[in-house]
């Protein structure tokens, strides 16, 4: 059982509290992704789990053992760093073997484990090379190999793909997912890239300002963000947010009057929304449709400011009466900047946030 349990974990650097009380349970064999903007504390939290940063308050349990006071090497964790952190003066083989040698593993066993990991990661040919003679992707594979040979309870990845180019990133992402399936080990992955978070995670932990904003499956977090921050942070392109006023509530249905014009009805509202209160309607870019300007209900006028042609689809950036809007549309729907369009809102799966920014739908 390689579960990780954080209880009331807090961390201060000088007078600044960077981790403000984290309670979290990561299940055995789960791949959890910490995601959040720069400075949200995700890397610090990972380093605290690794033992590279002291825990000021609270405790950390790994595989049922309280490891809060234990040295990094005694926690049963292995970490892959953003800049690979391979020892530059050692060959790939020695990099992989270093930790095992420190643990006084017999040399035959060291050799077997190093070669097994190398086979798994397809780096057998690189074992004699120094890190400087390898490409970024090869270095990252060696860094992952160094973590694998130690057979840790928990793998920790600190933005391991940020230094790779786009295509290599996709390849390494799928390799990490494959490794997770094959090794069946708990993994914690830190990233600021939400695509990585969405594609890799069993569960995503969204952090902001040293606090957890939401924990959930990628689908949950995408479709049911807990608050405006998560709604704005998760999803690429970001969710469209429309300021609105509640007209009336009928059971789980709420009628709204958008500041930008049309009246809409949101279904599935869990909380109560009194008439006249300010709320925010959230709609993903795929829930907006554009057509050349024609009068009608539920439409918002917009002007195309930028069209990003991605091949399979086009992302339109519009300026609307309440601010910018983003729409995903078909590639063949040709739009030129400056063109006036009507935006139709598809209210299925709409998100509604109260005046404090908390989700009520």
């Amino acid at each position, binding site marked *: 059982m390689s579960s990780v349990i954080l209880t009331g974990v807090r961390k201060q650097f000088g007078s600044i509290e960077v981790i403000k009380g984290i309670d979290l349970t990561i299940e055995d064999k789960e791949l959890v992704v910490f995601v959040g903007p720069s400075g949200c504390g995700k890397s610090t939290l990972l380093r605290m789990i*690794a033992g590279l940063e002291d825990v000021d308050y609270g405790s950390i349990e790994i595989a049922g053992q309280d490891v809060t006071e234990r*040295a*990094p*090497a005694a926690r049963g964790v292995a970490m892959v*760093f953003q800049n690979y*952190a391979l*020892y*530059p003066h050692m060959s790939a083989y020695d990099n992989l073997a270093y*930790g095992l040698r*420190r643990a006084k593993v017999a040399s035959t066993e060291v050799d077997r484990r190093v070669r097994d990991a190398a086979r798994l990661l397809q780096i057998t040919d690189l074992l004699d090379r120094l890190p400087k003679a390898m490409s970024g992707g090869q270095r990252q594979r060696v860094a992952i190999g160094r973590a694998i040979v130690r057979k840790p309870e928990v793998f920790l990845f600190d933005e391991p793909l940020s230094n790779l180019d786009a295509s290599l990133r996709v390849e390494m992402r799928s390799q990490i997912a494959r490794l997770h399936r094959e090794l069946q080990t708990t993994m914690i992955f830190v990233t600021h890239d939400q695509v990585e978070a969405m594609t890799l995670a069993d569960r995503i932990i969204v952090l902001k300002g040293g606090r957890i904003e939401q924990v959930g499956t990628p689908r949950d977090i995408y479709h049911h963000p807990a608050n405006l921050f998560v709604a704005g942070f998760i999803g690429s392109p970001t969710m469209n947010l429309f300021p609105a006023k509640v007209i009336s509530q009928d059971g789980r249905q709420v009628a709204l009057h958008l500041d930008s014009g049309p009246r809409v009805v949101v279904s599935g509202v869990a909380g109560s929304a009194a008439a006249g209160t300010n709320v925010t309607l959230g709609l993903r870019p795929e829930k907006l449709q554009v057509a050349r300007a024609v009068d009608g209900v539920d439409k918002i006028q917009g002007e195309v400011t930028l069209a990003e042609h991605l091949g399979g689809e086009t992302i339109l950036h519009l300026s609307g009466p309440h601010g910018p809007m983003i729409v995903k549309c078909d590639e063949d729907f040709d739009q030129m900047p400056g063109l006036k369009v009507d935006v139709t809102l598809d209210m299925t799966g709409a998100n509604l946030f109260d005046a404090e920014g908390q989700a009520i739908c």
Partner: protein
Amino acid sequence: MTTDLIRRRTAPRHLVSSIIYHCVMLLFAAIFLLPFYWMVISAFKSNIEIFSQPIAWFPDPIRWENVSALFARTDFPFLRQFANSVFYAGAVAFGTCFSCALAAYSFACLRWRGRNLVFAFTICALLIPPIVTFLPTYIGWSRLGLNGTYWPLILPSFFGDAFYIFMLRQFFLSVPRELMDAARLDGASEFRIWWQIVLPQVRVALVIVALFAIVYTWNEFFGPLIYLKTREDFPLSVGLFTFRSQRAVEWSISMMGATFTAVPMVVLFLFTQRFFQQGLATKGLK
């Protein structure tokens, strides 16, 4: 037209300015090399030829016997003093590298309360002229009964030097922290991380520090003169001086001794200038 296009472009040559530049540089090089050249040619002349008029810019004949004369002198145990110098400079270089690298690692790579304050105090030591502390230090060593030995000269180098600590710290700061973190996760102790992971990354800086320490110690005069008592214990710096002050007319043997004293430093620099250039380039880019 076609010929113009296919002709390789060359950088514009400023021939006149280039000639002037090189002439000035050669002039300065000659001025700096002149004393060294004078020392070497004097070593192969007789005492009379050295001061003969007009000045002979090349020894004629070359007196190779001056070399054997130097090594045969009983009142100037050159080889013994050369060995003393090698031991003295080597021990100080080792002590300086060892202690300063440990201190610099602590200041740059470890986090502990009061680190910056202690570092500031260390740097303050640079402001204290060594001559101010010389007398109390001398009395201290005397009371320990270690005057007349190399201990007072070598042992302080094992307790760090503010300048070298500062210099090494700058190099240590450029070593990625993740390397040390990775080693900690691999179960290496702090000493092992310093020795096996960090020091190999700053070997250029270590060579430079060792070189500075060797050159400084090789030429060090005051300390050995005060602490050491016998001719057999002197390093070359003091040995050469005492020989010259006692045998003032024997210029050729003095110059031969000075040549043999200077040559190891020149050879050492030729072999290590690559590190100097690397070190300067590295620090220039930071």
